[in-house]
């Protein structure tokens, strides 16, 4: 790994998680306020996360297994906010509502 590769790899990894987190945040706020603009912003953040994952795979000197890990993480990020949201909604339903 060259000194420059060290820096841009680390920055890409950090931004990747930040984009994933922003997706989760905007998606949740959008669902909370039933605001499509927030949900769309969340999806845009996720698209940025995909681009960052792609950049990590194409331009960084990480070993192949780590790149696969990044791709899988990117896929899992897509699922976490909606799955968590659905689960929380189910959890918050009272037993009467569930019946």
């Amino acid at each position, binding site marked *: 790994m060259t*000194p420059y590769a060290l820096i841009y790899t680390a920055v890409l990894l950090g931004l990747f*998680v930040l984009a994933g987190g922003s997706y989760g945040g905007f998606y949740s706020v959008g669902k*909370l306020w039933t605001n499509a603009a927030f949900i769309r912003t969340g999806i845009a953040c996720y698209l940025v996360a995909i681009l960052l994952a792609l950049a990590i795979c194409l331009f960084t000197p990480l070993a192949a297994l780590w790149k696969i890990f990044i791709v899988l993480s990117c896929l899992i990020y897509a699922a976490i906010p909606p799955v968590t949201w659905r689960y929380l909604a189910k959890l*918050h339903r009272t037993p009467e509502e569930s019946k």
Partner: protein
Amino acid sequence: MYRSQKLAVRYFVAAVALFGVMIIAGLLSALYYLHPSLLFDVFNFNMAKIFHIDTLVIWLLMGFMGAVYWFLPQELGREVEGIWLAEILFYVFCAAVAVVSVVFIFVQYGGSNEFSLWFINQGRKYVEAPRWAAVGIVVVVLTFVYNVVATCIKARRMTGILWVLVLDLIPLTLLYLDAFPALTNMSTDLYWWWWLVHMWVEGTWEVLIGCIMAWALMDVMGTSRRIVETWLYIEVMLVLGTGILGLGHHYFWIGTPQYWLSIGGFFSALEPLPLLGMVVHAIYDAGAHHMKTNNRPAFYWILAEAFGNFIGAGMFGFMMTLPQINLFSHGTQWTVSHGHFAFWGAYGCGVIAILYIAKQKISGVNFLDGRAWKWGFGLLNFGLIGMVGGLLIAGIAQAFYERAIGGSTLMAFMAGQENPWFVSGMYARMGFGLIFAAGYVVLVYDLLSAGKHAPKSAVKTQAP
């Protein structure tokens, strides 16, 4: 108020005082980077750093213990068993901290012998307290465990949160025994020492703050027990699942087997996933209760905890946890940046939220709000973000110039320390550190004065 809650208040006061000492020692430590000959041979950098880190550990630990003493009688509807012993040991704990501080200031270090180990400094990072004091901490923690377990037994009642708490107290206590050095091989010693540091911070403390936050959510937002307990189980499973073997991300440059580096990198890289779930949960819970709360400062500090934990531990951690990066970033200011943000997000914000919960009950007001807490919240978080930004710049410069280009030689270290990026980062850390300190002063002022003029009757719940 229960006697246990009065004891909790004493723990909170001690925790806030030590939080202040931590800040002063941190500012002093930051000054050494700008003026390396400061207090040379009078009070060297290493002592300021010991104070900064040890008080961090102790103020958080006291905050956690205070929180448990606060919520436990509420949870079980009875006084804590053996509270008289806990009251005595609180003063013993404080006296021990004071004596160790005096020794650290005036004696500082001794020869390489048993006397130094027992009475001056154990010589182990983060757990430097001399052995007599370390024994004392074990006694205090054992009493704390006895208080919790005996109260549950006497009450003949266990809740989900209490089960998690009681099970967590076992490793919390046992791991501290690892603070007593017995090994002379440096690699072996560091290998086990990390079990204490990592498993406490990324294992048992995570679970402990999870239990405390579960109580806090029920108190501040009125979240149902069924929900917080179910979520607590999931979070504990995910955090421990990713956190325990993340241990390997510390095993750089100390002679541990190479396979640990990949194991540590893999599991710690998974850590942002449950933290993302926590962010979604925080937003959901805030929304499910229509942002309604009767304690705004506590509410906002709980939210800050979820976001701070994700960015500090998740994003800043992921940036540097893969072995190819960690190899260079390890032990630089980059790590310090991550450590500051992660501790603040995961624990600092949570303990401050509990302080406000207790404050509301002590003041007897139904609705806690005001202006000062907003200033404290803003200054502390703005100062912290600025500090970690400065440290990040300094750390990246260090990894780049000193490690990657310079090859970690002594000359490269010196060149790295004089690099303008590094120096600028250190100035930024100092400046933002002062803002953080100002936030602390406002926080203390608010904790002392909040609710004094608020009406003490008429239940009132407002949306922020």
